[in-house]
């Protein structure tokens, strides 16, 4: 079986019909990790239990039991999601030795569906970054060209998927962290509606924005994985109680008569010529398939980066207060602790445990929430957030989905933006508003830069309308000029 070019359903069907064993599939990807991970640094940890888990699936199949929708399919999991018995670091030194006693709901649901967990994928520390350069475990390389970043914060997931170091991966998206690296690495990534996927067991960065989602090779794989991980969870009271549609069964590449909105402010923001060309190609192709295009306006677009960073850092400063060196994680002063004050104990533990970008964001958030500044920064941002969401809701009165670039430029070289935080934050101009408004968004590969790096396009739908972007994404995938392109490492 050609595991490099098989969809998740094909692998699962083959395991269930005993054409291939889950163990063979797992070993295939473990071998690829062995061979390629030293170059890419996509995995932080490889699970020693992967083969054992695969054998358990094979036994289930042998006994004639229902082995699940994703039986024997090997997945890599972003290191922001807790995995029982498997080290989970969030890309940080402060969680270097943390072994969760439980699985995140997303991981549990994948395992219940038969998934084999291969290991944990690198990410920016606490998902705070757009290039995977802030990870304590070193930067991830873009499989299309190792001099370039894979994007972030789910850079390990994107790189592993593009280089096929897993059949599928999971990422998280707080301000673009699934869509942007998917775009930079030429894969499909979907951030579901806020509330679709449980956040239980996901290391919290900004709780009103965080969502997990699939980062996979095709739209079909995204639909199937989404079906498995979505739905109400008693352990996360912000999950939606809505029933989860059969995304994979309902997939239909039909865009005839569909109204696709183009955001005026995005079109006028100085796109890289290759990104512009990719967008123009998609418009031409979708028109040929019968879609109609309409112009819409989101006048608050320029506010999305400030509002996002003010809210995300405020929430982060509160969420990350839990890392105090007491109950788990890194601790300064393991010895001589009788001679240190509690204040110094906290400050020194946190000072040595967190990296520079995380400190920067905790401090920005602390400032925004501090007495005298709360109204001007945090509260004001939440007010603008409501207005921004309303502009999206108004735009959806004129169209069914929105089509846009994911970023203004293709992937950039490692080291070129990391020294200027504001410049790095401004990369997120087209992705952050989706999270602020709680909408579902997806990146689909549709072009290539002159340097041979992938370019994706972003689809956005109204709340809980993931099916629409999956369907348009499928239509785009079928006519994509880069269909079948693979990085040289494959």
């Amino acid at each position, binding site marked *: 079986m050609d595991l490099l070019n098989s969809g998740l359903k094909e692998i699962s069907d083959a395991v269930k019909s005993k054409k291939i064993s889950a163990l063979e599939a797992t070993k295939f990807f473990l071998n690829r990790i062995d061979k390629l991970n030293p170059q890419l640094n996509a995995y932080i940890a490889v699970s020693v239990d992967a083969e054992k888990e695969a054998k358990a699936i094979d036994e289930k199949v042998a006994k004639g039991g229902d082995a699940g929708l994703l039986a024997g399919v090997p997945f890599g999991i972003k290191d922001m999601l807790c995995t029982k018995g498997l080290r989970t670091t969030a890309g940080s030194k402060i969680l270097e030795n*943390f072994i969760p*006693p*439980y699985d995140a709901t997303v991981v549990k649901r994948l395992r219940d569906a038969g998934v084999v967990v291969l290991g944990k994928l690198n990410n920016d520390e606490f998902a705070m970054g757009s290039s995977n350069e802030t990870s304590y475990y070193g930067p991830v390389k873009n499989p299309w060209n190792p001099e370039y970043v894979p994007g972030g914060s789910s850079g390990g997931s994107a790189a592993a998927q593009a280089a096929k170091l897993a059949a599928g991966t999971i990422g998280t998206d707080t301000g673009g962290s699934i869509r942007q690296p998917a775009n930079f690495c030429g894969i499909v990534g979907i951030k579901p*509606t*806020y*509330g679709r996927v449980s956040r239980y067991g996901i290391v919290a960065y900004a709780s*009103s*924005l965080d969502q997990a989602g699939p980062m996979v090779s095709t739209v079909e794989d995204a639909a199937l994985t989404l079906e498995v991980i979505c739905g109400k969870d008693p352990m996360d*009271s*912000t*999950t*939606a*109680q809505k029933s989860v549609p059969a995304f994979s069964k309902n997939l239909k590449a039909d865009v005839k008569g569909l109204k696709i909105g183009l955001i005026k402010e995005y079109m006028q923001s100085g796109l890289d010529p290759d990104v512009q060309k990719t967008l123009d190609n998609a418009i031409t192709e979708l028109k040929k398939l019968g879609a109609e295009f309409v112009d819409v306006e989101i006048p*608050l677009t320029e*506010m999305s980066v*400030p509002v996002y960073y*003010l809210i995300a850092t405020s929430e982060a*400063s509160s969420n990350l207060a839990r890392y*105090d*060196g*007491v*109950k*788990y994680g890194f*601790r300064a*002063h*393991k010895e001589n*602790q*009788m001679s*240190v004050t*509690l*204040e110094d*104990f906290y*400050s020194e533990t*946190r*000072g*040595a445990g*967190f990296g*520079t970008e995380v*400190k920067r964001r*905790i*401090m*920005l958030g*602390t*400032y925004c929430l*501090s007495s005298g500044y709360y109204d001007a*920064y945090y*509260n*004001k941002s*939440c*007010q*603008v*957030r*409501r*207005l921004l*969401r309303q502009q999206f809701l108004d735009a959806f009165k004129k169209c069914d989905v929105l089509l846009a670039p994911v970023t203004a430029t293709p992937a950039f070289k490692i080291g070129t933006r990391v020294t200027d935080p*504001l410049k790095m934050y401004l990369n997120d101009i087209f992705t952050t508003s989706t*999270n*602020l408004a*709680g909408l579902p968004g997806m990146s689909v590969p549709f072009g290539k830069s002159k340097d041979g790096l992938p370019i994706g396009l972003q689809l956005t739908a109204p*709340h809980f309308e993931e099916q629409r972007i999956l369907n348009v994404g499928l239509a785009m995938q079928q006519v994509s000029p880069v269909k079948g392109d693979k990085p040289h490492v494959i």
Partner: protein
Amino acid sequence: MIDRKMTEHIATLARLKVSDQDLEQFSQQFTQILKYFEQISKVDTTNVEPLVTPTDIEAFWREDSVNQEFTAEEMTANAPLKSGNLFKVPPVV
């Protein structure tokens, strides 16, 4: 303008020990970043209710029932320092 003294104050509030070099750099970066972010003050938000969660989700509660999901040993397994099933910390009083 977020000067060095203010930056140090924020670090104290956040319980973060920050090096002199980082304090210097953070002070410049915060000034630059917040200057850019201050453009949100231009938006008229009179009578706009702050939005703190983006979807209209009906929060729900779990049954008020006793479950034992973890043992004390499991819950303290990651402790950097412990005594039996108790976390060891510096003297507090």
